[in-house]
């Protein structure tokens, strides 16, 4: 017959650790956040917004346009 209080101290400690781990896992749903994909997405958008990948020639063209709108 198995009884809870039959656990030795190591087992208790493990049980507690597992509880902590599982509650932590439950609370931090952020662990599912796809960090790598988000970085990739960020890089794509940054390339586009800052016009980093469309050749260096396009960048100097834009400031006069900005001046013109003033």
């Amino acid at each position, binding site marked *: 017959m198995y009884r809870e209080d039959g656990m030795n101290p190591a087992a208790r400690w493990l*049980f507690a650790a597992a509880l902590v781990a599982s509650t932590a896992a439950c609370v931090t749903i952020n662990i599912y956040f796809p960090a790598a994909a988000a970085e990739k997405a960020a890089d794509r958008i940054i390339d586009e917004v800052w016009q*980093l990948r469309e050749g260096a020639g396009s960048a100097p063209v*834009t400031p006069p346009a900005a001046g013109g709108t003033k």
Partner: protein
Amino acid sequence: MKSPSMPSASLTGRVAAVFIGLALAFAVHAQGNLEIDTPAISALRKAMQQRHAQLAPLYASGAVGIAADGTVSLRDAAAVPLAQRAQANAAVAAENADRAALYREIARANGHPEWEGEVRRTFAQRWLDRAQPGWWVQQGASWSRK
């Protein structure tokens, strides 16, 4: 009485299962791309790209810096001619409004509105990392020139 090692063995098994589950879930999500091509996100990207023509000289002069929280900041208005300071401030405010919308929209478009904070943090880091030499970036609370 069972051997005392039995419950601990089953517990470690369970813990391992939890971690494997988490790792799997993470892996599944990490594999895909984030959706960033919805019309709303595209409209924001386009608006931000257009505004970049106005902001680029401000980044270069140091008037506007790349802030640590995923926004841009009017950190040295003195670098802008007096008559254009209000416009620069308006451009910064408009850019930050669009950026806030962008982070919200990316989180929403991927079915997880609660990711907004993570999306913002990820973008904040990438904006900082990819800022061009000469631009001002914020690390912690202090500003430095890249």
